């Protein structure tokens, strides 16, 4: 899914402190059984929830629901907000490629016309009434998040480096490493465990510093064109940055230009993988769960 839309990126730096805050919240809803008249679970099973939007009227988005049967995607409304859902006979979805793409496709379609709070993959409720109850009970929070996310898109940026090339560069450019390397070579200490370990430690430290510097520069270059950013854990040892950026829809081009500029600046030294637009997965972390309690 990640490479759904890979953008071209080859371009230059400045520097940045990590931008702003991460807009996220976990919402755990506890309801009793009776506030809403019980609606019998339909024969069709549950409701798969893709996300939440602002909508005063019921809407339909076509027959593209998850599960392969082309279930219609429609809204379950509460006041001026609505959950995007489709019927499902399955309660637990395996995160297969097909299911993940179906989930993503619905969100993408809705995103074209609405600001959406995306739900985690696999969110299933029993009935429309259950969903309405959730919307009712966290209405204020949802409205708040929708307001914060209005007109904003997420972009992903992963940066890999050519570690070997940087190490070679460090052996020449880093005075301390260069001298130590020369010394152990001159004294034929390459086969000495402690000398090798010491050199390894020096290179490791220099690599960490270099990587942190690059990451700071990239954030700095993008800070002016994004609303917020989130730093995720890099994957594998070639990746030095795995970030998500929240960008105003009308500044998408500026963000694009800034990414290309910094990627060009680093040329072959760093490899930028730039994806999006995505719904704000990294900035909204709402996991809806209905806990059924007993009324007292």
């Amino acid at each position: 899914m990640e490479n759904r839309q890979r953008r071209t990126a080859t371009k230059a730096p400045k520097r940045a402190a990590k931008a702003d805050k991460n807009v996220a919240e976990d919402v755990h809803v506890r309801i009793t059984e009776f506030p809403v008249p019980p609606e019998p679970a339909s024969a069709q099973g549950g409701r798969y929830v893709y996300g939440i939007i602002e909508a005063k009227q019921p809407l339909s988005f076509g027959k593209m629901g998850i599960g392969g049967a082309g279930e219609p995607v429609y809204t379950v409304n509460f006041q001026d907000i609505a959950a995007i859902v489709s019927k499902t006979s399955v309660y637990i979805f395996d995160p297969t490629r097909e299911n993940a793409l179906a989930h993503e496709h619905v969100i993408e379609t809705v995103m074209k016309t609405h600001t959406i709070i995306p739900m985690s993959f696999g969110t299933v409720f029993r009935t429309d009434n259950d969903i309405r109850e959730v919307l009712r009970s966290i209405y204020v929070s949802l409205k708040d998040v929708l307001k914060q996310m209005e007109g904003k898109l997420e972009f992903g940026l992963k940066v890999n480096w050519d570690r070997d090339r940087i190490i070679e560069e460090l052996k020449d450019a880093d005075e301390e490493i260069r001298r130590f390397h020369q010394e152990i070579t001159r004294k034929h200490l390459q086969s000495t465990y402690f000398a090798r370990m010491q050199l390894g430690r020096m290179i490791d430290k220099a690599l960490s510093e270099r990587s942190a510097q690059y990451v700071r520069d990239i954030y700095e270059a993008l800070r002016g064109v994004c609303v917020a950013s989130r730093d995720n854990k890099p994957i594998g040892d070639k990746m030095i940055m795995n970030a998500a950026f929240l960008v105003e829809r009308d500044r998408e081009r500026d963000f694009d230009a800034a990414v290309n500029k910094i990627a060009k600046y680093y040329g072959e030294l760093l490899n930028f993988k730039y994806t999006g637009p995505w719904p704000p997965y990294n900035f909204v972390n709402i996991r809806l769960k209905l806990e059924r309690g007993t009324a007292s």
Partner: protein
Amino acid sequence: MPKAKKPQILVVEDEASVLLTYRLMLEDQGYEVFCALSSHEAAAVLGSRRFDLVLCDLSLEQNHTGFEVFERVHKRDPKVPCVLLTGYANRETTERAEQAGITVFFKPIEIDEFLQTLQTILRNSHGKPAKANRN
């Protein structure tokens, strides 16, 4: 003529700078090196790939040990040669390693001997323990 495939070695070590040192040393010898900083990372990479040799420190993160990694390796393929690196030379460790067909190196390792042994193990590639250093 097709290029000969480089032997692939997985190195598991929970100290990043030491891991990098092994990596640089082994890459200098022409091996393709994969690194894991924990037994968890090792488990993940072992689930998706077969290695020609696995090199692992005895003490890993928290209370995990290299033996756990080797068990996982041998569960998938008992023929993959394994090499244990340890700074703690005790009989129990050595016996356990020998029983499992694991070569043991005691730190500080003699680098030339270490590299030579790896080369021999890979050449033979029967998974039989090579003679380890006993410094």
